[in-house]
C-alpha cells in the first residue's frame, strides 16, 4: 500500500456510489412501511412492560440531547414520560435562563452573547468507568463549547468555550474517572483564524482536539489541544480498563475537501480513527513540549453560593504538535467516512462505524499496542504514524445493513449498532462478529443508547433508538414533524420493540442511569441560609427600593401569596429597573414566578424555593404597570400581583414602596 497523500484535487462530479446507497435506502424504507409494528410483541405485553402506574417511578433517568433546541430533555424509562427540559446553550424564556442577569454570563463567548446553539452529545461523568450521577456534560456544536449540568439541581452550572475549534462535534466524551472531557473540532479552520482563500484549505486549515481537565468539584479548565491534520473530526470515545489512557476520534474528509463534501469527502475507501494517549500528553506537557498559542475563550461558571454566573476570559492555550511528540497520536485506517467510534465494556474492542459502508471494522487494543511496538506502520500523515489496517483489525461484522452510525453494548458481550440507511438496529456478538438479531426502526436511527452502554457497566435491559425521521408514525403536525425515540427490551435473545415516543428538538446522543443512583441526590429546595446573592432579601422586613442615579434596585420577596413590596412609586422614564426577586419559600415545589408588563428584551423569572434572580426592565412609557406571579403557586395565586408606577421625568414623585398599606 502506498503512503497516503492528501490533496484537495480529488474530485469526482458524479456521486454514483452514493446514488446507489440512496436508492437502496428508499427501497428498504418502503419495504418496512408495510410492517409498521416492527418487532413489537403482543401489544398488551409491551404495554405492561412500559406501564408505570400513576404515582410510581421509572426505573431509569434518560437524558436526551435536544439538538437544535440547545437543551437537554429528561425522560423516564421505560415509560418515555418527559420530566424536564434543561436549558443549556439556548435562552429559555420559560424560566428566564439566559434572560436573568444571573444566567446571562453562561451564554457569553468570545463572539459576545450567543443566544442559541446546537447541543448533540450528553455524557454522564464516570468513576471507574461507571456513570456516577454527579454531572452531565454536553457539547455545543455551532459556537464550540462544553457545558456541565449539576445533577443535584438539574441546572447548567458551567459553559466553557473551546478556542481554535469550529463545530465542536466529537465531544464531550469523558475518560474513565472524568479526568478529561474531550472536544474535537468537526470543521478544520485556519489556526489562528485569519483571512485566507477557502481553496487554500490543504495548506492553511488544521483541526484541534481539546482536552478539558475536570477538577474534583466539577470545574472545567482547558488543559491542552492537539494540533491535527485538516480533517473533519466526527465522534470520539475514551478507552476504559486497559485502554483507559487513550481517546479515540473518528476522522472523515481525509480528502481535505472544502466544497461539495457529500461527494468530495466520500472518495477514499478508508479514513481514520485517531488514537490519542492522554497520559503521554501529560508527560509532554510536564516536559514543556507545548506551544502557547493565542486563543480567546470564555469559561462561565455559576456560583451556587451567590446563584450568579461569572465569566473568566482566557487568552491563550497550550498546544501539542504530534510530530514533536512521538507516541502521542496514531492513525488507524477505517472504512469509510467513519461516524461513531465506540469502545466495548472491556476496553479491548474499538468499533469504527463506517457510515458509507455495510460492514463494521472492529479493532483490538491489544493488537494496536502490538503494532505500535513492532512499528507496523503504513506511512504517516503530518508526522503521525498510520498503523497497518490488517495488523490492528480484530474482526469485521458483516452486517447486511447499510450506513452504520453508532454502537452501544450490553452486559452480556453483545453489541448493538444503528444503521441509518437501512433503518434498523443490528445486534451482534463481540468476538464471533456474528449478527444475532436485527429489528427495523421507524425511521433512520442516528444514535442509540443503552443505560451505561458506553461505560464499563451497561445496565443492559433497554435500548433506545433515536430516529431522525418519523413520517407516518404519529398524527401529522403540518410539514414539521417530531423526531422519535424507540424503546426496545434487550433482556432476551431477541430485541423486542416496546414503545415509541416523540422527542423534543432533535435528539442526537443520549445517556441513562438507574433512578436509584440519581434520585437520592436530587435537591428539593435551595437553602435560604446558604443564599449569598449580593441582592438577596432575606426577610420581608429587608425589602426595599434603592435609587443610584438612573439605576433602581428593587429588593423584592415572594411568598404565598404576596410580594413585598407590591406597590412601587417614584420610578421615572429613563430609569433602568432591576427587580432582584427572592423566593422566601423553603417548601418543596413551592415555586413562584415574576413578570412585568412591557419588558422589551427579557422574559420572566421562575424562582425555586430559596432562589434569588434578577430581571432587568427599562420602562418606555408613563403609566402604572402590573407585575404578577406567573407560577400557579397557591389558592391565592391570582391575588399575587402588584403595581409599579412610572412617571415622566418632570414629575415630582418620591421613591416609595409598600405592601399591605391601606
Amino acid at each position, binding site marked *: 500500500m502506498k503512503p497516503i497523500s492528501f490533496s484537495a484535487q480529488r474530485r469526482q462530479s458524479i456521486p454514483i456510489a452514493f446514488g446507489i446507497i440512496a436508492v437502496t435506502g428508499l427501497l428498504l424504507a418502503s419495504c418496512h412501511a408495510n410492517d409498521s409494528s416492527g418487532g413489537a410483541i403482543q401489544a398488551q405485553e409491551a404495554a405492561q412492560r412500559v406501564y408505570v402506574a400513576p404515582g410510581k417511578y421509572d426505573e431509569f433517568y434518560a437524558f436526551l440531547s435536544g439538538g437544535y433546541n440547545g437543551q437537554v430533555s429528561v425522560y423516564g424509562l421505560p415509560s418515555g414520560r418527559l420530566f424536564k427540559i434543561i436549558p443549556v446553550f439556548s435562552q429559555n424564556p420559560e424560566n428566564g435562563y439566559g434572560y436573568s442577569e444571573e444566567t446571562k454570563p453562561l451564554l457569553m463567548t468570545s463572539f459576545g452573547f450567543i443566544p442559541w446553539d446546537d447541543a448533540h452529545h450528553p455524557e454522564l461523568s464516570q468513576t471507574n468507568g461507571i456513570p456516577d450521577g454527579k454531572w452531565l456534560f454536553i457539547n455545543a456544536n455551532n459556537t464550540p463549547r462544553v457545558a456541565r449540568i449539576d445533577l443535584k439541581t438539574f441546572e447548567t452550572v458551567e459553559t466553557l468555550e473551546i478556542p481554535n475549534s469550529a463545530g465542536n462535534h466529537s465531544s464531550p466524551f469523558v475518560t474513565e474517572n472524568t479526568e478529561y472531557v474531550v472536544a474535537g473540532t468537526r470543521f478544520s479552520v485556519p489556526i489562528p483564524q485569519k483571512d485566507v482563500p477557502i481553496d487554500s484549505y490543504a495548506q492553511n486549515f488544521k483541526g484541534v482536539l481539546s482536552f478539558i481537565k475536570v477538577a474534583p468539584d466539577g470545574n472545567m479548565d482547558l488543559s491542552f489541544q492537539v494540533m491535527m491534520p485538516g480533517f473533519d473530526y466526527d465522534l470520539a470515545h475514551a478507552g476504559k480498563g486497559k485502554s483507559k489512557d487513550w481517546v479515540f476520534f473518528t476522522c472523515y474528509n481525509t480528502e481535505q475537501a472544502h466544497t461539495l463534501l457529500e461527494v468530495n469527502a466520500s472518495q477514499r475507501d478508508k479514513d481514520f480513527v485517531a488514537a490519542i494517549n492522554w497520559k503521554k500528553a501529560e508527560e509532554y506537557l510536564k516536559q514543556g513540549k507545548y506551544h502557547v498559542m493565542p486563543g480567546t475563550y470564555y469559561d462561565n461558571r455559576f456560583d451556587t453560593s451567590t446563584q450568579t454566573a461569572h465569566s473568566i476570559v482566557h487568552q491563550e492555550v497550550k498546544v501539542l504538535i504530534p510530530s514533536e511528540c512521538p507516541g502521542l497520536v496514531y492513525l488507524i485506517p477505517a472504512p469509510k467516512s467513519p461516524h461513531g467510534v465506540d469502545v466495548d465494556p472491556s476496553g479491548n474492542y474499538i468499533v469504527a462505524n463506517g457510515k458509507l459502508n455495510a460492514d463494521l471494522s472492529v479493532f483490538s487494543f491489544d493488537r494496536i499496542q502490538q503494532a505500535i511496538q513492532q512499528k507496523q506502520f503504513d506511512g504517516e500523515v503530518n508526522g503521525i504514524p498510520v498503523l497497518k489496517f490488517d495488523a490492528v483489525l480484530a474482526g469485521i461484522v458483516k452486517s447486511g445493513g447499510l450506513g452504520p452510525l453508532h454502537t452501544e453494548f450490553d452486559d452480556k458481550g453483545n453489541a448493538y449498532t444503528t444503521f441509518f440507511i437501512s433503518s434498523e438496529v443490528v445486534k451482534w456478538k463481540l468476538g464471533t462478529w456474528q449478527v444475532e438479531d436485527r429489528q427495523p426502526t421507524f425511521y433512520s436511527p442516528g444514535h442509540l443508547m443503552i443505560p451505561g452502554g458506553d461505560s464499563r457497566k451497561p445496565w443492559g435491559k433497554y435500548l433506545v433508538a433515536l430516529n431522525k425521521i418519523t413520517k407516518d408514525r404519529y398524527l401529522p403536525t403540518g410539514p414539521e414533524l417530531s423526531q422519535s425515540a424507540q424503546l426496545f427490551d434487550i433482556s432476551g435473545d431477541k430485541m423486542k420493540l416496546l414503545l415509541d415516543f416523540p422527542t423534543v428538538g432533535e435528539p442526537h446522543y443520549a445517556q441513562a442511569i438507574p433512578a436509584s443512583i440519581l434520585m437520592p441526590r436530587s435537591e428539593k*429546595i435551595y437553602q435560604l441560609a446558604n443564599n449569598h446573592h449580593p441582592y438577596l432579601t432575606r426577610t420581608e422586613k429587608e425589602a426595599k427600593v434603592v435609587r443610584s442615579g438612573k439605576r433602581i434596585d428593587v429588593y423584592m420577596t415572594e411568598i404565598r401569596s404576596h410580594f413585598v413590596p407590591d406597590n412601587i412609586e417614584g420610578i421615572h422614564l429613563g430609569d433602568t429597573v432591576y427587580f432582584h426577586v427572592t423566593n422566601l419559600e*423553603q417548601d418543596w415545589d413551592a415555586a413562584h414566578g415574576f413578570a412585568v408588563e412591557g419588558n422589551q428584551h427579557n422574559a420572566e423569572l421562575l424562582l425555586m424555593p430559596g432562589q434569588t434572580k434578577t430581571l432587568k426592565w427599562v420602562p418606555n412609557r408613563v403609566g402604572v404597570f402590573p407585575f404578577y406571579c406567573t407560577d400557579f403557586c397557591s389558592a391565592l395565586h391570582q391575588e399575587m400581583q402588584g403595581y409599579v408606577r412610572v412617571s415622566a421625568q418632570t414629575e415630582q414623585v418620591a421613591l416609595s414602596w409598600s405592601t399591605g398599606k391601606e
Partner: protein
Amino acid sequence: MQTHPSITALSGKKKASAWMLGAVFFSVMIYFFPLWKITLYAPQYPQGIRMYIWIHQITGDDAYTLQNINILNHYVGMKDIDPHAVPELSYFPYVLAGIIALGFIAFLMKKRWAYLSWAILYALCGAVAIYDFYLWEYDYGHHLDPKAPIKVPGMAYQPPLVGVKHLLNFTAISLPDWASLCMMLSIILGIAAYLCCRSSAIKPHYRLPAGSDTPREKPVVSHS
C-alpha cells in the same frame, strides 16, 4: 420451694429503689424526645408534614416545617406558630428538672410515701401540661384573623388532642410521642416503687415459716 422472708423483704426494697431510679432515668429522657406529634396530610402533602412538640421547643420534619405550616395556616387566619410566643417552652424544662430532683431525693430517701407523693405530683403536673396544650390548640384553632382570605362559617381549626380530625383539605393526626411515653413510664415506675415497698412491708409476716433458718437480718417492716 420457699423463699426466705428476709430475701423477699430485701429484694422488695431494692426493687423499689431500682424502679425509682428507672423513673428518674426516663424522666431525664423526656428532654431528648418529642412529647407530642401532629401529622398533617393534604393532597399537596402526600408524604405528610410532621410537627413535634417537645418540653422546650417545637420542631418539624426540617428547619422550615413551621414556616411552611404557618404559610398554610395564614389563609384561614390562624396565628403564626412561634415557639418564642409560648412561655411554657421556656419554663417547663425547669419544672421537669424540679420533678427529676424530687424524684432523685425520693430515691435517696427510700421512703414509701415519698415514692407515692412524687408519682402523684408528677401525674398532676402531666395533666396540667396536657390541659395547657389543649388550651394552646384551642387558641390557635379559634382565634382567627377576621381578615383571613378563607373564611368558612362555623369552622374552627383546632387540631385534636389525641386522634384524627379533618380540617378542610387537611387530615390532622395528633398522638403522644416518645417523651410522653417516658413520662407515663416514669409515673408507673414511681407507683411500682411504692407498691413494692408496701408488699415488702406486709408479706414477711405471713410467710415466715416455723423452723426455718435464722434470718441474718430482721425482716423489714412497714416504714410508715
